[in-house]
């Protein structure tokens, strides 16, 4: 599986260097730390997914199916790549935060930690939703379906906020009352469960697609 990751790194190499450099620079700007964090995590989300487009374009899947790798390893490597880029994104945020302490205001490590945790949960969930769609519909159609799903989720969330607006303070208060460790544990469980199910589903879809059942 490491060789599969290596291949994706070779493919992303040039574009990754530029994007990582930009992310690092954004994270060094004192007044734009949250923008820098968002940028870093967006890269962490998008880069692994772009490798699926490259694979499709050069028909890598046809070749890799002939090699001594199992479908689980082939699909699993994409998930591992996503987790790796997420860790890289988090590291960039931490590095930027640390660098800012050297020449600017003292860093709020608590806030940074919370921001990273929030992003990791969000991107972890998006990853879980995205991969089965990319394997099912291909990278082009899959992205469109994904946009449609997120638009629907946004409308639902917006609707929920509008409905709860009268009692917003109460909602926030109840959330704050939940102990942080319990919240973190719940997030980890949801994230792990979603990614495990997503991975199993992606392997199934990958096999069906390989057999030409979606043609």
């Amino acid at each position, binding site marked *: 599986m490491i060789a599969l990751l290596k291949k994706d790194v070779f493919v992303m190499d040039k574009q990754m260097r530029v994007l990582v450099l930009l992310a690092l620079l954004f994270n060094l700007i004192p007044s734009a730390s949250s923008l820098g964090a968002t940028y870093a995590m967006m890269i962490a989300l998008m880069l692994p997914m772009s490798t699926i487009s490259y694979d499709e374009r050069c028909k*890598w899947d046809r070749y890799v199916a002939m090699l001594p790798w199992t479908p689980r390893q082939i699909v699993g490597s994409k998930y591992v790549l996503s987790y790796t880029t997420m860790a890289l994104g988090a590291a960039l945020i931490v590095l930027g935060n640390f660098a800012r302490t050297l020449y600017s205001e003292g860093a709020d490590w608590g806030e940074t930690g919370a921001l990273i945790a929030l992003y990791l949960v969000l991107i972890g969930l998006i990853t879980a939703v995205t991969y089965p769609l990319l394997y099912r519909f291909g990278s082009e159609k899959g992205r469109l379906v994904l946009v449609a799903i997120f638009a629907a989720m946004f409308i639902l969330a917006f609707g929920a906020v509008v409905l709860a607006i009268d009692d917003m303070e109460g909602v926030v208060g109840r959330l704050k009352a939940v102990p942080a460790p319990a919240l973190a544990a719940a997030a980890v469980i949801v994230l792990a469960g979603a990614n495990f199910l997503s991975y199993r589903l992606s392997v199934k879809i990958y096999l069906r697609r390989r057999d030409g059942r979606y043609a």
Partner: protein
Amino acid sequence: MNAIEIKGLTKQYKDFALGPFDLTLPMGCVLGLVGENGAGKSTTIRLIMDAVSRDGGQVSVLGTDNTSPDFRQVKEEVGVVLDETCVPEFITAKQLGKILAGAYRNWDGEAYGRWLERFRLPPDKKYKEYSRGMTMKLGIAAALSHGAKLLLLDEATSGLDPMVREELLEVFTDFAAHDDHAVLISSHIVSDLEKCCDYIAFLHKGQLRLCEEKDMLLERYGLLKCSPQELAAVDPAVIHGKRVGEYGAEALVDRDEAPRGLLVERPTLEDIILYLAKEEVR
């Protein structure tokens, strides 16, 4: 032991059905899989490698059923070259070597380097800068660098100039010269197969129309050249395909059963395949 044994293989797609058919490739031999585009050659190769699930039948590769858990080990001993090398365009030959070193336990980096040198492939040049001939050579270099016993070549010579094709056919023939090696090569360039194959299998519209030793095939058939009137007098059971013009006729016939006194030439493999592919088979 046979390199490949196929029994009753079938695969059904929405608009295409392959098989059922049987096929055997003995060790030390080269089998040419010939057929028109869309005949099922690539699908057969993918089914052999279990890169597509079969609907029925059995496939054994180097003595192992290709759906058994042990088949992953067998894949280490099979070199595959596809009609397109399917390598990402930003990757160099050197990087491909590093990737494949993680795929094959028996990967031989030195052998890979030697093949790159023999094929004059620059290791640090990006794949997208390679010519068609170079990309195919890269695929072959990769397939020959992990101690493969069986080579599966899917249209590996198509789109290449005659010089490169000749060079590659020589490589395949040398490979198959070992008793514990075998090659299955699919192509629609029948003249290439005639040069290097021991056996010929002909796939037509998903059905295996013949699988025979090449020399037997060339001995068995004759190309009868005569007038349309003379052809009309020939027993139809002897004729396997014919082309009748205003001034002359040509027919693929059983050489031993051909009428005496008429001109019967030795056909090329291409003649045999073309006549059999026509729907005028008995």
